[in-house]
């Protein structure tokens, strides 16, 4: 690894563009109480998201999740510890640094997510390139897409994230990549 320059690593990484992971199912179906906690977080008292009786008479016939809640409900969640890591497209990208910062987030919402839905997700690497940031002149920028599907295999949402992966100041110095 030490022999590979950031540019060589980028060349390898770019071969992963378009590669999509296997679907990862969520641990549990969409449930009421996590939605309630999510709404509590931002002071949202919309009965469409919390009141089964209200929701039964409203447009969707049952409680739906607030927009963007899907990030919290899909996947295995932060507990219990997993015996093996979930494969992600960006996780396969070898880069000089391993410090992540998420910058841009983009959602397209296609279908309502309802209580009881079982959501799975797949990930795809859309782009990877080198662009300097203050901390690291050879920062890797990764653009990832996550596709969320429900139990009927319908795509309910897609999320696109732009993430930078940088080295620590010490690593930059050790590599002799002084800032331009």
């Amino acid at each position, binding site marked *: 690894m030490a022999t590979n320059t950031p540019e060589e690593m980028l060349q390898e990484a770019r071969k992963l563009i378009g590669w999509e992971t296997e679907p990862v199912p969520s641990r549990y179906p969409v449930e009421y109480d996590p939605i309630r906690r*999510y709404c509590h*977080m931002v002071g949202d*008292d*919309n009965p*469409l998201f919390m009141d089964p009786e209200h929701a039964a008479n409203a447009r969707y016939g049952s409680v739906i999740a607030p*927009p963007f809640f899907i*990030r*919290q409900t899909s996947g295995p969640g932060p507990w219990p510890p997993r015996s093996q890591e979930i494969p992600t497209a960006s996780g396969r990208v070898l880069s000089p640094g391993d410090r992540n910062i998420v910058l841009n*987030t983009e959602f*397209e919402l296609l279908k309502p997510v309802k209580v009881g839905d079982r959501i799975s997700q797949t990930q795809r690497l859309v782009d990877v390139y080198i662009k300097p940031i203050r901390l690291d002149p050879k920062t890797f920028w990764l653009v990832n897409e996550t596709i969320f599907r429900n139990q009927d295999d319908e795509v309910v949402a897609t999320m696109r994230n732009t993430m930078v992966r940088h080295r620590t100041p010490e690593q930059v110095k050790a590599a002799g990549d002084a800032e331009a």
Partner: protein
Amino acid sequence: MDETMTTEAKREQRYWDDVNEGDEVPGFERPVTPTQIALQVSGSQDFYEVHHDQEFARAGGHPDIFVNTGFTTACFGRLLSSFVGEAGWVKKFHMEMRRMNHPGDVMKLTGKVIRKYTEGDEHLLELEIWSENERIGVTTPSTATVLLPSRRQATS
């Protein structure tokens, strides 16, 4: 502290016909208090220490802990879903985490309508929405495309 919109206000459906370019998107404030930080962890289930452990955040070179993407996204989710109502739909959302919100900041979520148009039989709006605080102004510029019901459709 929190200018929560009442449930009644939310239940009133907004129609595309009544909206004009330049209209404000009704917003709300979230002061970043210790309780808000605790709510952020519970609601987002994001346990990365940089968002709740001051010492950890400072060791990482930040002046203090800062609110996470999950929380910020949820704030915009509340703004947008309140705006479109039950008959509307949030089609697309784009957010840029440019600057941080720290404890002591008051996040102000707000926005305006920048384009009103139709596409096929969809009645759409493009919104510019953002989070700002008193310390640095806009921290999180964002955009959204939303669909609203039209009175013409409702009556036809």
